């Protein structure tokens, strides 16, 4: 069984090859790691202001473009003060 099976219907963070970070509920995946992510939002990091959250909705992300899928602990995540977190945005994957 793929390790992703246990992430289904849980909140995940997806880091894509272009360095973006998507947060949402994992609804499904296939053998090429194409994924369905529901209630998706993007977190945009910046060194000058807090994390900006952009609501996106239902997404299919193609497996080619996925670098990392991480399980999010909802209780810890809800304690984050996004407006006061600064950070360098990630760069794209270098081939």
């Amino acid at each position, binding site marked *: 069984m793929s390790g992703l099976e246990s992430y289904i219907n849980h909140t995940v963070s997806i880091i*894509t090859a*272009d360095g973006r970070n998507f947060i949402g509920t994992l*609804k*499904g*995946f*296939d053998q090429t790691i*194409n*994924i*369905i992510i*529901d209630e998706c939002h993007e977190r945009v990091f910046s060194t000058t202001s807090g994390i900006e959250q952009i609501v*996106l*909705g*239902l*997404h*299919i*992300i*193609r497996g*080619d*473009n996925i670098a990392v899928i991480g399980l999010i602990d909802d209780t810890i995540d809800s304690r984050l003060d996004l407006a006061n977190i600064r950070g360098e945005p990630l760069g794209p994957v270098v081939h």
Partner: protein
Amino acid sequence: MLPLSLLKTAQSHPMLVELKNGETYNGHLVSCDSWMNINLRDVICTSKDGDRFWRMPECYIRGSTIKYLRIPDEVIDMVKEDAQAKSRNRAEMNKNRGGNSSQNQNQRAPRSGNRNNFGVRSGPSGGGLGNGGMRGGNAGQGNRPPAQGNKLRK
């Protein structure tokens, strides 16, 4: 739920497709296949920097160039209905298959009948359609040897 079943369910719905090169395509999904190749109708293409736009009546996008697709929220609920309908059908099929009733035998009878018909058509008569063509050729040139007739047919 598989991403490609969701995509199939999204047919006729509007969607946004971002390609790996950063271009985005907004349009209605006409069709898709198992490689995620897609057909869109009434498309607006936006350049990577978002300051140039092109309208086109339709376009075809190779699946491997896609980064992600943004789909209307309600589509995910429609997949569930599809899956439920499918599993209901499957349950009914299993019920029929499991039963040892006369109804079951009736189901099998026509299928074997079809197989016999097929055998007759392609067997003794030497292939329905091809044979007809050869007969037509021979009618015009009666002294042509059969071997040449076969070559002509190919």
